């Protein structure tokens, strides 16, 4: 007897998703019960190809509203609970001269609906393919459902050439990033419409060729407006750190089809990448490693991926007319739904009170391992932190370069470090001293001892402290260090702090490995310690990193 029935999918937990398509319809998808197949429970709008949806945006309020940009250059703001039109505005057209001289059209390519808490209240930021970014205030509807007038708060041009294809707004809703074909990534301050930062083309490749700018997807990471992840038409995913440099910090290829969509995960480091050939995968953006692909017979280009704010789910939709819901943990297909049209965008609508995603990550971390961060490391503020990061990076680069020398040095200096028993405490010392270095504002000193590597530097620094400085603060710190060594809890907690710091900070791969393993090491330490004790102290340093990678 042949198998004639489909294998049932595991089912999706209770969710509510909104999916819009090329006919301008918005479909509300819900699952029945605690776990079931998703179903369309409502359809808003009438099928009209002129009203096709281009993008959607959900405001970050507690009771959010939904903005929908249509082909007809209108933006409808809808109540996502019942689909009633709240207000509507028309995106102003660019002047005919501009439009005629370029290939790009007046179509909207990016949309963001601001929450009420944002500096400009309820407003909508749109961007057209011509690069005309407009911040408009929402107005009440008059009788005939026409807007009373456009209340343009600010308007600026992102690019004089090329076609803008994507836009993203950061968590604080003060900065926007744009990119497109022939338009490299640029970060703008929405308030005064000024460009803060723009990317530089990456270096020539091994053939000496430059790839022209072609940004197809962009998103901020959960780190203010500093980290921007970008997908290109040349099937590349790039990470930009706007606070450090103009060239990508990290770039890697995925597949052979252009990247169509990129979505961040609230954990702050994984991103979901969807391509034009229907491949969907999850990457660790710190290292550029593929965490895994999402299967489920995705046949067509993926136009939109969203992560559920609380549950470990992602929804994807695209040209193959299916909405698919995957688990982010198992990367298994939980449910799929055929929605008849080519789908454009999908959003999760959660009515529950949810903290903003930056908060969630912070909370997650804190619930996982309650933090008692030392004053030195914890009191980071803005620039100071970035400085620290820089100095750390330098130090770590040095560490890589001078590895051999370091080892030699270790053998000599090993004696002094023997006092520090556990792995965790070493790390704390390291991070603390680094922080101290940075606070004192002498990264040169770190550079002065490149040979020593980070740990040596830290040591040296501490020795310096003892010799040179005899003021109260330093001794206090030292005492603290000792106390942290003394009680086991302090030891385990601190690595997680360094890990948190690291998560924000995309560094060289090796450095990251050390840190990520360190973070995990907090749990495994019990197993780590006995192994270490057996080893000779000189060897210990050598194998430190390797061992952690292994245990990971």
């Amino acid at each position, binding site marked *: 007897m*042949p*198998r*004639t*029935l*489909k294998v049932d999918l595991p089912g999706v937990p209770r969710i509510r998703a909104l999916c819009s398509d*090329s*006919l301008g*319809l918005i479909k509300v998808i819900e699952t029945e019960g605690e776990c079931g197949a998703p179903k369309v429970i409502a359809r808003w709008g009438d*099928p*009209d*190809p002129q009203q096709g949806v281009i993008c959607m945006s959900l405001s970050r309020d507690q009771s959010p509203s939904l903005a929908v940009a249509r082909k007809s250059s209108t933006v409808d703001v809808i109540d996502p609970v019942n689909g009633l039109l709240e207000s509507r505005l028309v995106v102003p057209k660019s002047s005919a001269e501009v439009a005629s001289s370029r290939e790009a059209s007046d179509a909207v390519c990016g949309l963001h609906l601001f929450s009420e808490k944002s500096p400009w209240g309820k407003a909508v930021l749109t961007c057209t393919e011509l690069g005309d970014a407009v911040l408009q205030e929402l107005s009440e509807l008059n009788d005939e459902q026409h807007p009373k007038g456009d209340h343009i708060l600010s308007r600026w041009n992102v690019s004089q050439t090329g076609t803008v294809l994507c836009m993203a707004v950061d968590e604080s809703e003060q900065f926007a990033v744009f990119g497109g074909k022939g338009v490299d990534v640029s970060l703008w301050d929405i308030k005064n419409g000024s460009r803060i930062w723009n990317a530089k083309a990456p270096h020539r490749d091994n053939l000496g060729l430059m790839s022209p700018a072609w940004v197809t997807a962009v998103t901020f990471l959960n780190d203010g407006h500093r980290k921007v992840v970008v997908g290109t*038409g040349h099937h590349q995913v790039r990470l930009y750190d706007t606070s450090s440099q103009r060239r990508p910090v990290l770039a890697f290829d995925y597949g*052979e*089809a*252009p990247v*169509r969509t990129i979505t961040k995960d609230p954990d702050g480091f994984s991103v979901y990448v969807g391509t*034009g*050939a*229907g491949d969907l995968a999850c990457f660790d953006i710190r290292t550029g490693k593929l965490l895994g692909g999402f*299967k489920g*017979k*995705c*046949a*067509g*280009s993926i136009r939109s991926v969203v992560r559920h704010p609380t549950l470990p789910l992602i929804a994807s939709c695209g*040209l*193959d*007319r299916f909405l698919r819901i995957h688990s982010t943990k198992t990367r298994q297909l939980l449910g799929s739904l*055929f929605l*008849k*049209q*080519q789908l454009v965008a999908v959003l999760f609508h959660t009515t529950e009170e949810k903290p903003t995603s930056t908060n969630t990550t912070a909370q997650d971390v804190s619930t996982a391992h309650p933090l008692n961060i030392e004053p030195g490391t914890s009191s980071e503020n803005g620039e100071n932190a970035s400085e620290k990061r820089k100095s750390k990076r330098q130090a770590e680069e040095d560490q890589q370069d001078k590895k051999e020398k370091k080892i030699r040095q270790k053998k000599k200096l090993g004696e002094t470090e023997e006092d520090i028993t556990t792995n965790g405490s070493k790390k704390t010392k390291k991070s603390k001293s680094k922080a101290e270095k940075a606070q004192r504002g002498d990264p040169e000193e770190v550079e002065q001892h490149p040979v020593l590597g980070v740990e040596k530097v830290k040591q040296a620094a501490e020795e310096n402290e003892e010799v040179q400085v005899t003021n109260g603060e330093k001794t206090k710190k030292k005492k603290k260090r000792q106390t942290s060594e003394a009680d086991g809890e302090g030891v385990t907690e601190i690595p997680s702090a360094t890990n948190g710091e690291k998560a924000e900070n995309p560094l060289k791969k090796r450095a990251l490995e050390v840190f990520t393993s360190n973070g995990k090491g907090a749990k495994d330490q019990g197993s780590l310690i006995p192994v270490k004790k057996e080893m000779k102290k000189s060897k210990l340093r050598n194998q430190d990193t390797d061992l952690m990678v292994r245990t990971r």
Partner: protein
Amino acid sequence: MGKRQREEEQAFEQEEREADAHAGVILPSQIRNKCKRSEAYAKVKQEKKKIKKQKIKQRDAAEKEALELGEVPPPRKIPRTIENTREEDETLAQPDDEELQAEEGADEFSNYFKHDITPKVLLTTSQANSVPTRKFCQDLLTVIPNCFYYKRGTYNLKQIVKYAINREFTSIIVINENRKEPNGMLVVNLPEGPTAHFKLSSVVLSKSIKGHGKATRHQPELILNNFTTRLGHRVGRMFASLFPQDPNFRGRRAVTFHNQRDFIFFRHHRYIFESKEIKEKKEKLNKVDPKKAKEKKKQPKEEVIARLQECGPRFTLKMMSLQHGTFDSKYGEYEWIHKPDMDTSRRRFFL
């Protein structure tokens, strides 16, 4: 044969019989000797055949009886095939679907179906091409009206697409070849796409079809079979848009795209309606009344039957991808692309 030997043999046989009774029947596949095995197998097969024949006889008899008694004969069983045990597919297009109609009213082919444009097709080959491919193109030229063959030269496809759009072509067909055999077909709908890539196999040129006819210049009728899913609809519409919409029924030419298990079979026929006498077997039996027979012969019963003549070519297509927009294999976006994890069931079809 000694007594002892005989006894041994008997004992052995008895043992065997006992074993038989114990374990049921020995299957032919359990016999190690090949000769014996094939013999045993032949026997099994024969028996099966017998049973089958008996069953058919019984069924026929039951039917006859029912008919004689004026009853409704029992319904015949439908054999199980791969197609009718196809996996349940939610993408099947419902003709009364409002959304489907709205979308098809506005898609890339809607202009064609509204009679706004007449198809004009550019036919070309891959850059390296050989005689068989060109001959195949020649055959295709006889099939598709308003179709123009262009030498490929060294132009790349994107250039050709631009060229064709400027000359108001509505589609481009590119025949790809491998080892001097046509093996791929690319159909680009202009000016906005989509682009479909098919694997081309089992090509039989008109000339090598026995008793083939020569196609006339009349505009053919088009038969699209079994394009049932949403994707199938789209592909079917794409094929439709290669041919003019007003067939010349005088020409009695029919072009068929028949989809079966995601393979699209292309056939090209000429048909004719002929009146034919019906042979009645019972006349011979009624030799008793020669007069009646003569009367009947004077007025032979006539029946109109359709006869087919194949014109060719014949080929089979299998869709590999459907790409959004005109040809851009590197940076294009796919609406549907075949992936290995789709092949996990033989009973899953997409068209």
